[in-house]
């Protein structure tokens, strides 16, 4: 399945787009998804970004579905 992931801040700059697509198996949990993202976009890792599923920051390793709204958010630094 294809998961759409919205990118914020410097992640969108690094990827050159505000949305990426990740090809995964039909069932995937959050941690496995993060591993795939890290492998495909190693430059993301250093930013300590967090993941939001359906507009909630999630720390638990829950399953992620294709219908979920997924976003990853790096810290912002500018003042």
């Amino acid at each position, binding site marked *: 399945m294809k998961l759409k992931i919205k990118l*914020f801040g410097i992640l969108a700059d690094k990827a050159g787009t505000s949305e990426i697509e990740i090809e995964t198996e039909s069932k995937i949990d959050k941690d496995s998804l993060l591993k795939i993202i890290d492998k495909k976009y190693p430059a993301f890792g*250093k930013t*300590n970004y967090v993941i939001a599923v359906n*507009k*909630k920051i999630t720390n638990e390793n829950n399953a992620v579905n294709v219908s979920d709204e997924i976003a990853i958010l790096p810290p912002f*630094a*500018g*003042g």
Partner: protein
Amino acid sequence: MLNQNEIEKYSRQIILEDLGEEGQLKLKKARVMVVGAGGLGCPVLQYLTAAGAGNIGIIDDDLVDLSNLHRQVLYNEEDIDKPKAEAAAEKLRKQNSDINIVAYNEKLNSQNVNSLLKDYEVIVDCTDNFESRYVIDIYCDKTATPMVYGSVHRFQGQVCVFNYGRGQIIDPTIYESLSDDKYFESPTYRCLYPKPPEAGSGLDCSEGGVIGVLPGIIGSMQAAEVIKIITGIGEVLSGKLLCFDMKTMESTIIGIKRNIKDSGFSSSGDKELWKLIMEDPDDSRFSSEYYGEEIYAEILMNWMREKKDIQIIDVRENKKSWFKSDEHYGLDGIKIPLSELVKNPKSVSREKDVVLFCDSGNISHEALIILKEKYEFTNVYNLRGGMKGWIKMKKKLHRK
């Protein structure tokens, strides 16, 4: 009590039922500290001053620069090279003479945080660096002081209120309606980002660029949250991170839960972080340990004064420099752009201490890592803050 002049001055907001004279009095008694008087700090300060927030503190150690004026709308061309905190205070006193404004011309850090913030009830985070942000967050968590956070990146901005509703606050009746669960739920910035980003993430780079209106929008939202916290109007953005995109004018609110249990310092990680930044800031993850072999402009200047035998390398690509005349500030080095250095570091000395620099210290940090890890150099340093930090230091010295 409000006097007749105040009633007239604030009549257009007093007339709002939600605010009234009672709300205006709360504003009059309020003590708000704004950390950072830059792109975000300017609108926060202007709107809070105009709204009648009675006691306002300003912390900033920076000087007004020509390149600030497109977004830092409190300042004008005559203010260039003046300390921001003082220039801002001067303007704000003219804007509203009823307000007690105190300017602190210093950088907030772990050593001065207690003394600078202790007299204030709401802290507005308008900083542009992670060191100050984590110091504010830990202080606010420990003392249950609301922290109104804002930050921008290119065309996007974030606003959130952290450490809200867990303790002493202007009007305790606001919280009587909150259940205990909710009371302890209010997240800190560290619930979102437990640790500062790694050096070299690109986030400490100030060259991203910004259109002046964006910090204007985000700063105005922060001012609105401050007024809501003080007066109890509406619903505060606690546990909700507002993400705004100027390109589409879309706002998204992302929920955050508290994941540090209880208030203050229950987890050992927190205690460690606090200890690091409270007791030994120079040895904290924000400086040597965290950034690796980073040196401040002051250290490099001392080396140069002592005529220490060092090699200075400018790793900027051959683009036109951001700064009018770098040479004028006395920092020059052999030019080896990062792209060449990566391929062939044969001109880099292995005997002398080597100092790398770029515009803001970010590209040269990358160079440092490559020289250390790929080519096993042990004698390399990075100039923290780059040419920008160097010029800032020189201007400050010049003022003294």
